[in-house]
């Protein structure tokens, strides 16, 4: 209705991990009930999202206020959706414990989750996006693939809006007449003011992957179901990953990787001036600047933490050298 006097419930944006984790523009609501958003490069205004993927990490922390949980779902774009369950969400704790038991027994499975956008700004200005879980469940493949198709469509819609916006002035009338759907206009204006030029093609990769999975139902899904093996891959294997990057087109980085990714991470963490440790996003940024892909960097961080035990994560998202 035109005369809506209350802020209604925010719709759940269908979004792939790649687009969401690339975003670094928060829009904070003013007032007690005003919603906050993460604006992506394609102009999605994310307050609530529906996302899915295979469970990749899941752990519990016990704090003064009760347990909290954090984890990651890896989706078809290869990126991960980070999520948290807070101590003040006791209604989710029973399900989280059940999930933890299954995860720790070595089981991996597909999940769907509805979450609210959260972010964290590091001292050096890096912005970390994640979600606070609202509802989640373990799903059969069919349901996940259905989400892939929906999210592909939503991403195509944003890609098309983005390309429509290219020749247009950055105001609502001009964008509307260029064909940008009304729900994307506000986010598009903010995104175009904030982000520099980028190649939107990298977002098409997730779309193609999602759609091809839906078409040949027994195909490539196993490849994302197998990240634990990737972590234990020897270092030599990891070095060939920049070619995967070229294939995925992710981050559009044309730089030749300089040196070994582990060295980049270790020196970045060692040189961090932050007492709590180096924020995750800053490490990834350092790796990307050195020419490594985001996926490769993320895997290498986990490898250094879990396998080689050269770095530790005393606080979620912050890394220190293990001396």
């Amino acid at each position: 209705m035109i005369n809506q006097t209350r802020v209604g419930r925010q719709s759940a944006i269908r979004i792939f991990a790649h687009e969401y984790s690339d975003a670094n523009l928060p829009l904070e609501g003013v007032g007690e009930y005003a919603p906050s958003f993460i604006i992506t490069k394609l102009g999605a205004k994310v307050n609530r999202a529906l996302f899915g993927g295979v469970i990749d990490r899941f752990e519990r922390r016990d704090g003064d206020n009760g347990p909290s949980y954090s984890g990651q779902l890896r989706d078809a774009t290869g990126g991960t959706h980070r999520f948290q369950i807070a101590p003040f969400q006791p209604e989710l704790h029973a399900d989280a414990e059940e999930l933890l038991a299954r995860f720790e027994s070595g089981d991996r499975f597909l999940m769907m989750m509805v979450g609210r956008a959260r972010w964290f700004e590091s001292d050096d200005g890096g912005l970390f996006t994640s979600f606070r879980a609202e509802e989640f469940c373990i799903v059969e493949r069919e349901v996940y693939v259905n989400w892939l198709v929906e999210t592909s469509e939503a991403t195509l819609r944003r890609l098309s809006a983005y390309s429509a916006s290219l020749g247009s002035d950055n105001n609502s009338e001009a964008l509307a007449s260029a064909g940008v759907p009304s729900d994307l206009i506000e986010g598009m204006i903010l995104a175009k003011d904030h982000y520099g030029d980028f190649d939107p093609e990298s977002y098409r990769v997730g779309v193609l992957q999602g759609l091809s999975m839906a078409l040949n139902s027994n195909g490539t899904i196993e490849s994302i179901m197998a990240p634990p093996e990737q972590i234990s891959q020897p270092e030599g294997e990891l070095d060939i990953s920049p070619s995967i990057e070229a294939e995925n087109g992710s981050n559009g980085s044309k730089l030749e990787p300089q040196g070994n990714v582990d060295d980049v991470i270790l020196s970045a963490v060692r040189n961090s001036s932050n007492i709590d440790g180096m924020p995750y996003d800053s490490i990834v940024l350092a790796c990307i600047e050195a020419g490594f892909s985001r996926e490769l960097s993320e895997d290498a961080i986990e490898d250094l933490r879990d396998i080689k035990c050269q770095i530790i994560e005393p606080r979620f998202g912050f890394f220190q050298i293990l001396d």
Partner: protein
Amino acid sequence: MTDYEKYAAQVALVKEECKDADENDVAEEFRRYEEEFLIEPNDAVRSVILKFMKASGQEVKSISSTPTRVEKKVDRFADLGSEDKNVTIEVAVVTYVPRIQMVRGEEKQIAFGWIEDNPWESNDKRERWDFKDWGSHSENLAPNSVVRLEGVSVNEWNDKRSININRGSRVTILREGGPAVPALSDEPVTIEKASEKEGYVNLLARIISLKPDVIVKKDGSGTLDIFRGTFADSSGKISFLSWVPIDHEVGDLVKVEGAMIRKFRETPEVNINDRAKLEKFHDNNFASTEELSQATTSKIGELRNGMKDIITTVQVESWQSRTFTNSDGEEKIVRSGDVMDPTGRCRLTAWCEIDPKPGDFLHLSGARVQFWQGSPDLVVDNSDQVSNLTDAPWEAIDPEQHWVELELSDLVTSGSRRGIKTRGTIVAIRSDSGIIHRCPECRRILRESTCVDHGVQQGVEDLRLKFVIDNGVHNAPIILAKEPSEKLLSMSQEMVKEKISKSSHEDFLAEIRNNYLARKVMINGRSLVDVQGAMILAEEVTFDTTSNEDAANLVMQEWGVLL
């Protein structure tokens, strides 16, 4: 009555401040103020207090330093006094209506409307006041926005307080609202445009219906003669109500200046008073009465609360009559039934003798819409408004299969409708799904075995499910009553109850979540749309059976994707 008794209330106020004052002296003072200075006792309180304070040698500073230019910051209107100036408060703007007013011999654009305090809380915790904008702040006072007002003052008139937003006041937007209300312009607008806003408009339109009517004054002091009718142009039609006689006829093209658009329920209506001007206008290119009446036929899907003078055609699904006794003790018959057209279904109520059979087609004219249980229903008052058609205007609709499919986005942005079908993904399972207890008197849901109206009750068990469905752009809550819930769960209410008693309510919710969250469903039912948003009452919920492969192919086709 002695002076003391007459002024007891005011005397008590004075005594609070001046404990040593003699009550009779104080009362005498109030009498003097009233009789000699013609000042009402309530208005005299301040002066009397001052006088007695001075008399007793008390410090009078606190009173004489009346708040003049000191900023007063409040959260609620209730904290404001009638003379407060330079007030700072955060409010929600409800309406903003510009108008031209003569101020000291000069035409000035001012505006009035409603604002509500406590803007970050729900509506029922707010207080609503009128405001006047003397400072042309229309850009910053868009309806639905939340703003901080600084330097505004309180105005009291006939015991009613309101806020004056002055030229020097500052308005800061805290949360954006809808589009700003445009300043007045002399240009006529289309009816479609005029219907979108409230306030003063100029129109160029043809009168397509006109009849005199009578309004009974609320205070019982008599009646008022008015005129009702309909304007139309090529963009649509709109009802009007005129408080002044109309010297034009049906078919006349008129230019309307300075009329006022007001919402009657959900339907905008043009109000014409003695300030508005109606002039006959000549334009041979303007659509003719015949063309306009053709275009003004309504479909069930377009009905909105408050609409009048509706021309429509419906197919009858069922028909009943009921006898009742009205408040005057007269026995009356009301007839009603379910009717359909290709865009949906609704109820038709007739306060006249018509007895159609199921399957008949009725052509209605001059019908009106009444809201019943949240959905717009048609009403006819006179049998000459109804004609039974012999030629079917469409192939007979099968009522069992008649669900009009609508995109969720279209559904939540239009009016309430029956007989709709829509799709969406379940993104929330409400924790009050499951077995509930209703009040045996009024069917309201009991909270801790207590009904709001009927107190502690032995509740009647019922089953319901509550979800939220979402398509990525819009969302709506859906409610399933017992029957559709049982069908979806493939469990009877008894089975659900047993299940919950064997484990727990949380386990039941977890199971629902595992089976339905993130699943795409199809819903048959009805939608209720009001200012709070949309809600869907589901009559049937089933999983969307479109295969992923088909869905993917459709997406690739629509967006031109090649793998």
